[in-house]
């Protein structure tokens, strides 16, 4: 099963790297879904089946569908590919790349010295999660529900088209 973990990790990393570098938004989205599925598999083999299912169900199955939905609604995709390519000249990668590598280095540096237990492989069942969720974390659940409500209201309000769309603003000189 360890092999599954490492293979899924590899898949997740490669897929994510592809997400960041794609020019076609739908392809990127597909890679992102693959990455999320791989992460779900990692969760599963690490003994967290409940969040693995949630990862697929909510992340890959619902949130990403929203992306697809928007992409289809705005009819993006192949049309913008050339423009996307123009936006991504190689020099743009240098600064963020260095920053990310530094950040990763810091993370690795922190982790190297630590004495961390290996993952046991035994499962933390949905029941345990639920008991904790509606026990000590009940307030968190309430807050999350409020957050969702706020997101709902916000999305509804923002999504409405009240005023007729303004003329595209002129590019600033």
């Amino acid at each position: 099963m360890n092999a599954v973990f490492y293979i899924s990790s590899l898949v997740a990393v490669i897929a994510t790297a592809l997400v960041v570098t794609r020019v076609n938004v739908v392809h990127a989205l597909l890679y992102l879904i693959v990455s999320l599925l791989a992460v779900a598999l990692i969760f599963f083999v690490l003994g967290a089946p409940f969040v693995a299912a949630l990862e697929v169900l909510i992340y890959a199955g619902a949130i990403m569908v929203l992306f697809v939905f928007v992409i289809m609604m705005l009819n993006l995709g192949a049309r913008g590919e050339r423009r996307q390519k123009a936006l991504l000249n190689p020099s743009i990668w240098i600064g963020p790349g260095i920053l990310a590598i530094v950040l990763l280095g810091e993370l690795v540096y922190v982790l190297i010295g630590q004495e961390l237990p290996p993952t046991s492989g035994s499962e933390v069942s949905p029941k345990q999660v639920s008991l904790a969720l509606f026990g000590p974390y009940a307030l968190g659940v309430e807050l999350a529900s409020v957050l969702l409500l706020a997101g709902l209201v916000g999305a509804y309000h923002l999504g409405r088209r009240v005023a007729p769309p303004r003329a595209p603003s002129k590019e600033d000189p």
Partner: protein
Amino acid sequence: MAQVPMEHGLYVAGLLFCLGLVGVLVRRDLLFVLMSIEIMLNAAGMAFVVAGAGWQQPDGQIMFIFILTMAAAEVAVGLALIVQFHHHFKTLDADAARRMRG
């Protein structure tokens, strides 16, 4: 079930996070930015789950659920904003909205 060092899981999470970070910093298309943010959130959640698996506690999974909730709300609002953005600017290039520069 896999018995891997917890660091390895955390490395993967960190790597995914950094990739998302690069995406946020590099991409100009708002959809890509939002997707990269999702990657980062997912990576953070993954770190929690890995840690939870390491310590045999449900708390990691619970944090992941909260992050998931947050991501859902964030995407809903973010996508609504993107749609509005597209109506206004007829593009998703974030730099189109740079009227507020100093």
